[in-house]
């Protein structure tokens, strides 16, 4: 299954993003709550967020996905507020315990699996420094989320993004 976290409107998503049985889209319904930093997703309801607003099962959704696709406006070299808030609410995908990887501390896996990641950023006038920062952010996310980065792409306008509808033949 492909999990698509995006900040497009419903109409834009229908037009520009893959759809079908094998695609799960995480859309901004105007109700997402911000992570309150309580770690309840690790020690109270392990594996799920305690905030009940349709976005509490992100960890499970990532666990059921093979590919994580992110479509986001690029904001200060990172994700847009909605996409970032979804990511902030997804740490139940990981286990609270620590491991040392590449000489640095990271979280242990909760699920025995590797994700692949494709990230599509859009935004006008993105400079090389901003794109480089965004690539570094995706690489850092991939290291923390046990993912392989298959693509990080940029486009001036949403219409110019070619989000892969392809390869696995889904959709």
């Amino acid at each position, binding site marked *: 299954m492909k999990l698509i976290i995006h900040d497009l409107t419903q109409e834009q998503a229908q037009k520009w993003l893959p759809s079908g049985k094998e695609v799960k889209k995480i859309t901004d319904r105007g109700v997402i709550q911000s992570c309150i930093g309580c770690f309840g997703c690790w020690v109270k309801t392990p594996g799920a967020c305690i905030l009940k607003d349709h976005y509490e099962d992100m960890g499970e959704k990532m666990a059921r996905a093979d590919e994580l696709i992110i479509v986001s406006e690029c904001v200060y070299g990172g*994700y847009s507020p*909605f996409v*970032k808030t979804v990511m902030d609410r997804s740490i139940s995908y990981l286990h609270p315990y620590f491991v040392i990887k590449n000489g640095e*501390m990271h979280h242990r896996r909760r699920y025995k699996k590797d994700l692949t990641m494709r990230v599509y950023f859009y935004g006008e006038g993105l400079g090389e420094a901003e794109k480089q920062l965004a690539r570094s952010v995706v690489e850092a996310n991939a290291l923390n989320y046990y993912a392989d980065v298959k693509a990080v792409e940029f486009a001036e306008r949403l219409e110019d993004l070619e989000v892969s509808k392809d390869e696995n033949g889904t959709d």
Partner: protein
Amino acid sequence: MKTALINGSPKREKSVSALLLKELRDDLSEGEFLTYQIPLTIYNADEGISEIAEDLLTCDALVFAFPLYADGLPGHVTAYLRALEAAFAMLRNKQKQEKTPRVYGIVNCGFYEGKQTHLALDMMKLWCEKAKIDWGQGVGVGAGGMVYGLRNIPAGQGPKKAISGALRDLSEQVGTLGMAQDQFVSPGIPRILYKLAGEMGWRNQVKANGLTRRDLFTKRTD
């Protein structure tokens, strides 16, 4: 000298960012301080922002403190910064910009290495460019999970030495509106001890919630 202290922590209690800002403020001691709490939402970030922006543009220095979330700025901090960028532009158009403040950032993370905050600090620098204000210095604090537990140890003592040293250096930059390389620090305990203490902490917390240590390993796909 007028300094704004802007806290992006989601917590009203036990906030590490608040503790770090407090220590910086104690180091600065003199001058006028404005304090702000970033709202914990990504919606309506522009509500009331133009008054805040106007006040911030009367400051000499802005100090932001927030936790690292998934390698970057928390979503609600991104929303707030974007609203501020737009409000600053509007005020400049109306020639209501009194000063060009210099921006400083303190980011703490749960991982041991303070260095893991560097991407969030780079995002702050990009924001400064876009908001047309100046960057000063960042401090990245690792092992944030134990900073609150050290709150009763006097600044500069024992395991607090490195963090207090970095905050003192930062206060010198803020006080002189200087610019310096980012500093990355951790509390003065070995990484393995932080790891073990952290894991014991998770086990204690899960048990305090009426669960067992096995529940820490719950898989929602089973």
